């Protein structure tokens, strides 16, 4: 049942030009950044040779590419998730799901999975770029995989926030801007000066950055998973409240 909803969500995305536009724009922008990172690396290379234990091409190019990808997707994901529930609410199609023999949890998980599958595809396309470096360089597969895992977890979090925001309103644009706001806030939480600040612990960036250096910390992974679960549970509760009409 979850897959039925997920599949339809994916289909709807691809019927609309929005999904294609996002795929294209993200790809073009990241390709440009990727090339810029490589150029920079080539300029730095002579100096790096003189340093012991200098960071390698994987860290300097691939790590940074995934870092930039996170920022670009922070802008793109709200546009993908905004329609998930709000559009159904706006078109009054939500009652089709509500009167079918499925639970709220299944609805929410289906929507979430549909969106995440699309993001998975996007991720695949992004990953193809650094893989092309295999032609002329020795890459550290570990760093690539950990970066990929980090970005996957991060995007799942983005999607969960977007889904929740979409349950709150019937206007996709409102859902998009609030998702963007919440994500940006979570991204910037560690900006508040004090180093021991607990707010910094909640920052998405703090828990994403280690992945880019090839550092897999289970706390970071757990943080992302908790983040996703929290917003999914909130979405289920929100839809339930809809039915109770409170």
């Amino acid at each position, binding site marked *: 049942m979850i897959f039925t909803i997920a599949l339809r969500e994916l289909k709807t995305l691809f019927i609309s030009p929005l999904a294609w536009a996002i795929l294209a724009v993200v790809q073009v922008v990241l390709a440009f950044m990727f090339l810029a990172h490589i150029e920079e690396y080539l300029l730095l290379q002579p100096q790096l040779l003189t340093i012991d234990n200098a960071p390698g091409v994987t860290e300097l190019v691939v790590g940074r590419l995934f870092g930039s990808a996170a920022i670009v997707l922070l802008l793109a994901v709200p546009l993908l998730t905004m329609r998930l529930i709000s559009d159904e609410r706006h*078109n009054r199609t939500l*009652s089709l799901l509500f009167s079918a023999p499925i639970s709220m949890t299944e609805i929410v998980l289906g929507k979430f999975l549909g969106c995440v599958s699309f993001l998975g595809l996007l991720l695949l396309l992004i990953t193809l770029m650094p893989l092309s470096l295999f032609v002329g360089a020795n890459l550290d597969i570990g760093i690539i995989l950990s970066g990929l895992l980090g970005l996957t977890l991060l995007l799942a979090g983005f999607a969960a926030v977007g889904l929740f925001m979409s349950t709150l309103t019937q206007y996709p644009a409102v859902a998009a801007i609030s998702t963007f706001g919440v994500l940006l806030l979570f991204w910037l939480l560690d900006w508040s000066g004090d180093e021991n600040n607990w707010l910094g612990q909640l920052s998405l960036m703090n828990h994403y950055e280690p992945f880019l250096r090839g550092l897999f910390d289970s706390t970071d992974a757990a943080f992302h998973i908790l983040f996703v679960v929290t917003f999914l549970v909130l979405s289920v509760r929100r839809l339930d409240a809809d039915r109770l009409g409170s």
Partner: protein
Amino acid sequence: MSSELLLEVKGVSRSYGNIQALNNISFSIAQGEVLGFLGPNGAGKTTTMQIISGNLAPSTGSVSIAGHDLLTEPRAAKAMLGYLPEQPPIYRELTVDEYLDYCAALNRIDRARRKPARDTAKEKCGLQDVGKRLIGNLSKGFRQRVGLAQAVIHLPPVVILDEPTIGLDPLQIREIRHLIRELGKDHSVILSTHILPEVRASCDRVQIINKGSLVLNDSIDSLSRHMKSSLLTVGFRQAPDLSLLQALEGVQSVQADGKRRVQVFCDRNADPTDQIVKLAAKKEWGLVEISPQGVSLEQLFLELTKDDQKTAAGAEA
């Protein structure tokens, strides 16, 4: 009634904040019955439909569908139910076939049985020729049919239709009504509407709701029991003297309907037809038409909803 009760609504109330939308509503539907659910706008029809279909939780009371309680076993109960809301829940970007397949899957029809289920539903609703077309490009009548097909694709014992003929042209209305009568053969149907002839045309039983409370629940045939008066329409060639008509035995009141037509309200058991004919002959009014209106649902509806307004006003005073 001997046949099995498919839907039982017990003591359902619902309030939105301070507004009491439904007040202690109870009714039931037996197998193969078509129930007309009438009420003025804002009386609580849609709220009731939403509660029965599981889109809204009641504040108090319970709903059970084919023996499954909607609140404690929602999945089993909802599987027994097809719902067409006021605005059909259709995805404009899908084709009719894609959409119906999706609905079939949502209702847990196995992959193998989906195509036959889809074909049956399409046939029932007259959609055979538009399977490959985008729903967004269909006319309103066809979209309404797609909505109906969606509600019956899993052959639910109970079908709930919320104002299915709203916004359709007369021809489409006739087709949809015909469809509803067809549905009534295999399914129990609740039909919510504020269009009275629709109920006469398609329902076995009628239920009137006003201001959140049920004011009538009876079969179409025994409606006359609730009438306080019966109605005669009389047409003359010359304008008649209303006071003479009024004076006849058994006549409650007389209302001019245009210059030469008169509506005569009389006591339920009285039949002043003969007297009117005689009077008309004597005064040479030139009687051209006299017809009993039988029980007019419209009249009953007005009577019942007006009564309520009076009592409500009385309660406030």
